[in-house]
């Protein structure tokens, strides 16, 4: 695994060559890259050398998120008190597009209907309305309604969790509406 940089012309030519190769399984990591390496057409840079670390002693941070388990783990790791990747490091800001959204809001403070989030990351535009969010990561514009509970939940943008729903160790795709009873 890694980050690969090509010129477009070279990459297109190699993909076409691999496409014509009847012995290839047409897998980028198994066929295309090894072919280039075997012919001295690839140059490597050690990730360890330039990786941004939380502390000098920390291991280089890299996560392959090609499976549901690894994707979930990489997200949930961010809500740990001291995650492997410090996205709050002002020396290494994340330059990406961010929609202009109102702050996350937590409403209702009744004993049996309290909007709270603990050990969690809640993005802009979210509303936690009388629900309990634990050890979860909420992308933008999510809504978690009264008496619902989430634990170990990764909610992609625009997810709505209905009243009294309970979600444990889940990844919910963008825009899904989880009703109370499923």
């Amino acid at each position, binding site marked *: 695994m890694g980050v690969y940089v090509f010129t477009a012309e070279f990459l297109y030519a190699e993909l076409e060559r691999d496409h014509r190769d009847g012995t290839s399984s047409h897998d980028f990591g198994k066929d295309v890259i090894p072919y280039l390496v075997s012919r001295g057409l690839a140059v490597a840079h050690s990730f360890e050398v330039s990786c941004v670390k939380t502390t000098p002693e920390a291991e280089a941070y890299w996560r392959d998120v090609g*499976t*549901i*388990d690894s994707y*979930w783990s990489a997200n949930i790791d961010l809500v740990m008190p001291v995650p492997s990747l410090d996205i709050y490091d002002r020396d290494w800001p994340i330059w990406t597009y961010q929609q202009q959204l109102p702050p996350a809001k937590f409403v209702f403070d009744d004993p049996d209907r309290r909007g709270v989030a603990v050990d969690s990351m809640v993005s802009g535009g979210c509303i936690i309305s009388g629900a309990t969010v634990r050890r979860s990561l909420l992308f933008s514009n999510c809504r978690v309604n009264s008496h619902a509970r989430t634990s*170990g939940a990764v909610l992609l943008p625009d997810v709505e969790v209905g009243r009294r*729903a*309970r*979600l*444990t*160790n*889940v*990844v*919910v*795709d963008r*825009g*899904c*509406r*989880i009703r109370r009873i*499923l």
Partner: protein
Amino acid sequence: MIGEDPEFDAKRFYRSEQGVVLVNADMLAALG
């Protein structure tokens, strides 16, 4: 409830080897 009953989850959604449940719009639509 999602993520509390492995067999029920596997019938309705995708459940990984480590027990993480993936829910997407198509799966929810199939529930009617």
